[in-house]
């Protein structure tokens, strides 16, 4: 008879069946045995300094690798610290598997250390949550958790593992380990709906394709390329769909950032929206009142949300693209695309000039352009902040899937995501540069993770767009309250680069345009996790602030 503890059994199942390679965690007494199991079964662990970062890194891992991201946190504060990251994954539909410690079952209602009802707290922000009560059923519970996270519309799941079962020995022969099955049945749209969609595409004169996270999660690179290139439709890929086709594709309009979308959508006669929600970012679909809209989503309830679709196709993006491909005509929309490009360039006159011309203080658009000069599109970029997210989204271009990530721009608007996302990006693509453009405000949330970067040799390059303020809030307050009444939005000049140096990384302060590129090059040469603290113009406001402010003007 072979004896195995619950923690080791969990690790064995995850390694052998779910093929888990890495777990993001922070240690704790309740979860010691499962951590030891990871050592036993060769699962890499990245231990962070705050559980929020563990959840965010696991979330990001799922995006960069198209597989579930796993984090393990301890009970009580470990759990509550992770909640922001779980909520972010929930609103982002990311397949995050959260394993969590708990006070012992035997101590229920006795006032045990960290005794609290975690499951009820996490229920509204997970797709599925449960507590496992029997050591022999750990693999079964994990099997359910991974299926729930990944099947249909993805989302975070939460499994509570009490120490009574993690430390408990059991006979391995008595445990049933379920296989990971991949069923071939899929949800598919009706043929008449496919025909309707194809007819709209074939008759379109000014079409635009928008792809979101559903495109990214569906492994649709080949089918999307075939559909786009056959129909000749200009496209923008957003959220976790960004980079499914490279930004340099001749039909891609991502080079115009949000301006190209805001300019193009109101002019489009047909919009194909795949795996993307019409939420506040897209003004709930009000941007294009007259367009005919084809919506593709694996969740049928999403198709008419906020804006009724002309045709709704329920199904996985990759499968639907393949179904549409033989039904659509070879088209050439180069005249429309040329017009669209010229129009959005005309609306970006100042932005394009800011990228080209040095200024003092440094303009954030110029900073982004200089970063792109160093790394080009063979790199992974993350932007994090309010205005900083806009500047990154507008200026970064990448040839890689998920090569430009702006996680703070998703529904939770969660600042602090940048450093954990960049770390997961670097772990996923160790041979490529990974750059995070951080606002100085958002830098504060997870900057202690530079310690994690140093301990685990994760040489990300963080460039702080330092305007000495919570810029988006400050500039909104200047409009709403007046410049003399701004409150709680100033940060002051801080030497974040010295903080990173103190943690064992590389740091430099930059105040002049001509120093940006040399400083970045020295950071790369150092081979260390690096922070380049760039002092930028504190008076600069981004269009995102205006939209953010307008969103509250009706209140």
């Amino acid at each position, binding site marked *: 008879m072979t004896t195995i503890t619950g923690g080791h059994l969990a690790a064995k199942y995850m390694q052998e069946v779910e093929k888990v390679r890495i777990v993001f965690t922070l240690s704790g007494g309740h979860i010691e045995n499962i951590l030891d199991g990871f050592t036993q079964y060769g699962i890499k662990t990245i231990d962070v300094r705050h559980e929020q970062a563990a959840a965010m890194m696991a979330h990001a891992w799922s995006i960069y690798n198209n597989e579930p991201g796993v984090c393990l946190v301890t009970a009580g504060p470990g759990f509550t610290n992770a909640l922001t990251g779980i909520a972010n994954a929930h609103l982002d539909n990311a397949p995050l598997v959260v394993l969590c410690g708990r006070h012992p079952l035997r101590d229920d209602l006795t006032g045990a250390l960290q005794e609290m009802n975690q499951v009820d707290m996490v229920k509204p922000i997970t797709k599925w949550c449960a507590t496992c009560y029997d050591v022999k059923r750990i693999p079964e519970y994990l099997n359910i958790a991974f299926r729930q996270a990944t099947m249909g519309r993805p989302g975070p799941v939460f499994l509570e593992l009490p120490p009574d079962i993690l430390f408990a020995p059991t006979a391995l022969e008595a445990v049933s380990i379920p296989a990971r099955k991949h069923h071939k049945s899929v949800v598919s749209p009706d043929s008449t709906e496919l025909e309707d969609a194809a007819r709209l595409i074939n008759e379109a004169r000014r079409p635009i394709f928008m792809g979101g996270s559903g495109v990214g999660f569906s492994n649709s690179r080949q089918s999307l390329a075939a559909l786009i290139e056959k129909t000749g439709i200009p496209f923008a890929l957003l959220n976790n769909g960004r980079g499914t086709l490279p930004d340099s594709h001749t039909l891609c309009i991502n080079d115009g950032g949000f301006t190209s979308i805001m300019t193009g959508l109101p002019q489009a006669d047909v919009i194909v929206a795949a795996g993307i929600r019409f939420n506040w970012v897209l003004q709930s679909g009000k941007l294009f009142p007259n367009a005919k809209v084809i919506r593709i989503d694996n969740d049928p309830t999403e198709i008419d949300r906020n804006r009724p679709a002309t045709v709704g196709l329920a199904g996985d993006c990759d499968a639907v693209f393949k179904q549409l491909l033989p039904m659509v005509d070879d088209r050439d929309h180069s005249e429309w695309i040329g017009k669209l490009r010229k129009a959005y360039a005309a609306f*970006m*006159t100042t932005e394009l000039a800011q990228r080209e011309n040095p200024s003092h203080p440094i303009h954030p658009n110029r900073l982004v352009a200089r970063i792109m000069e160093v790394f080009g599109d063979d790199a992974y970029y993350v932007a994090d902040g309010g205005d900083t997210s806009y500047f990154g989204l507008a200026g970064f271009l990448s040839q890689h899937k998920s090569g430009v990530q702006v996680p703070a721009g998703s529904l939770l608007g969660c600042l602090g995501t940048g450093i954990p996302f960049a770390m997961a990006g670097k772990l996923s693509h160790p041979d490529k540069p990974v750059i995070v453009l951080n606002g100085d405000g958002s830098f504060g949330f997870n900057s202690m993770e530079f310690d994690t970067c140093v301990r685990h040799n994760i040489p990300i390059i963080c460039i702080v767009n330092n305007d000495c303020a919570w810029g988006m809030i400050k500039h909104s307050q200047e409009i709403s309250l007046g410049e003399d009444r701004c409150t709680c939005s100033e940060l002051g000049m801080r030497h974040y680069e010295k903080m990173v140096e103190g943690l064992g990384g590389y740091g430099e302060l930059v105040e002049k345009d001509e120093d940006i590129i040399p400083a970045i090059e020295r950071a790369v040469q150092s081979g260390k996790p690096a922070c380049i603290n760039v002092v930028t113009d504190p008076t600069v406001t981004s269009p995102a602030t*205006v939209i953010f402010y*307008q969103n509250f003007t009706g209140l």
Partner: protein
Amino acid sequence: MRFSILLFALAQILKIASFSNSRFKAYINKAQTRILIKTADGKRARLFVFDKGKVSSISGDRKDFDAALVWRDAATGFSVMTSKYPDASFNAAAEGKLSVEGMSVYAQWLEDGLKLII
């Protein structure tokens, strides 16, 4: 001349709407922005100032704007701004007859506001 008159007339329409059109009043209630409309040579220009519900305008070319709609010439500006076609501005931009300096989001804001009153 017609373009300058159009800009002057637009200023009067905006002012009247700012206290007579309830939807427009609500729209500009919290806005604080300066939008310039001008010809590329700067000879014809008017700055529209929106200050939390109040609208005013100043004739002449200026630099202190949040966004500037720059028309290639006065005739183009007049014909596009008085066009009944919703895609007239887009087409003008695509044809090099219109550019936006500063933050185009404010220009879009003005265009959406004008739809409420014209």
